[in-house]
């Protein structure tokens, strides 16, 4: 989770108190990344412990009990490193999709095509739901739009891959298709690829 760095990025704009960081973080992420205020303070405590933020005195209008946080020189350096670093190489979220299709092909092309078709329908239904939700919310902020675009782009990558799988299956020689799942038919299919 990059909440730490998100908070540092906001603090780089100037000192802020905890609740302000929560609301600004949520607005900047288009409402898809809700934070509870406890999580914000826990993160701020850790950032303070690590010397990346410091507590400043109480400022003008804020209530006396509210601490104002500011980024330190080390915090600015840590944030700079984060901008440069490539996001950690987590496994793609739909690795399971790939496994599912590969396993389905082992069972036979007809089954694989049905699985591909079903997965594509489900993915598109999810995309439609996402769009509807966004339109119903009437949130036309750039952040909300870009978050939707990111989800759509990722689903598109999966959908394109499903299209590619389907094309390959459709183009395989007749001898390679609709084979029962036996050891010999499997080896025939693999040899024809």
């Amino acid at each position, binding site marked *: 989770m990059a909440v730490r760095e998100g908070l540092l990025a906001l603090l780089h704009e100037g000192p802020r108190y905890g609740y302000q960081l929560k609301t600004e973080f949520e607005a900047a992420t288009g409402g898809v990344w809700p934070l509870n205020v406890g999580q914000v303070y826990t993160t701020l405590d850790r950032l303070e412990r690590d010397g990346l933020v410091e507590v400043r005195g109480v400022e003008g209008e804020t209530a006396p009990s509210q601490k104002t946080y500011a980024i330190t020189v080390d915090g600015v350096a840590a944030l700079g490193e984060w901008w440069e670093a490539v996001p950690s190489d987590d496994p793609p979220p739909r690795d399971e999709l790939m496994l599912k299709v590969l396993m389905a092909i082992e069972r036979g092309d007809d*089954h694989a*095509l*049905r*699985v591909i*078709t*079903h997965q*594509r*329908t*489900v*993915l*598109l*239904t999810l*995309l*439609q739901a*996402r*769009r509807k939700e966004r339109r119903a919310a009437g949130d036309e902020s750039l952040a909300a739009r870009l978050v939707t675009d990111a989800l*759509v*782009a990722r*689903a*598109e990558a999966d*959908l*394109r891959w499903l*299209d590619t799988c*389907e*094309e390959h299956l*459709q183009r395989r020689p007749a001898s390679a298709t609709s084979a029962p799942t036996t050891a010999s038919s499997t080896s025939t299919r693999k040899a024809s690829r």
Partner: protein
Amino acid sequence: MTTDHTTPPAAPPAIDGATGTAAVEFFDVVKRFGAGSNEVRALSGVSLRIEPGEFVAIMGPSGCGKSTLLHLAGGMEDATAGRVYVAGRDVADMSITDRAALRRREVGYVFQRLNLLASLTALENVSLPLELEGVAAKQARARARDALAAVGLDHRVDRYPDDFSGGQQQRIAIARAIVGERSVLLADEPTGSLDTVTSDAVIELLAGLPAQFGTAVVLVTHEPRFASWTDRVVFLRDGRIVDDTAHPVGAGTASGGFR
């Protein structure tokens, strides 16, 4: 192209308990091109009901029959077998004149290539279909202005198509396709020549039409991002419907379970 069906029903038979007049309805539609060894089956038994005010995407690999389906839905081609109803009327039963009138009154088209007439202004391009229908010029222009306003173009309407950007020209084409309260708007890859942001705006505009005008919109696309704007996606493969988000052939159903 001949039709080889028999005894045409006067009205579309009711299927799936559907009531009311569909915007477009296909019953076991077959479309073949060529003959003998050159025969190509573009559609192989497609049944599909599209409701008024529905926004439907048709998706599938190249050559799956997407565009053929759209041409049949617009009365531009005849089915080889099966029945096609547009706004409740059997297209095969219609004379050439009636069919031309159906295409002018009930069906609007938006294609990838911008088919605006370069020598007419934006306003004239949009009012032309009405004027061809015999609507008085003044009234036709007023309705064309309304249609242009509905697509976000309410100024510079006296300029010529070349004075507009690609996205704006596609908006003019959409205005022309919706003017005159059509039942159905058929869009074949309408964003092909546009950049992503402009394309999104065009699709968003199409997405608003069903609620605004009660028009059914049928969008042929290969782009999931555009299909995601629709209410329903119908998938074609080899001329057949293989899935439909409105009636998914998913796991656990009698027709398509994976057990």
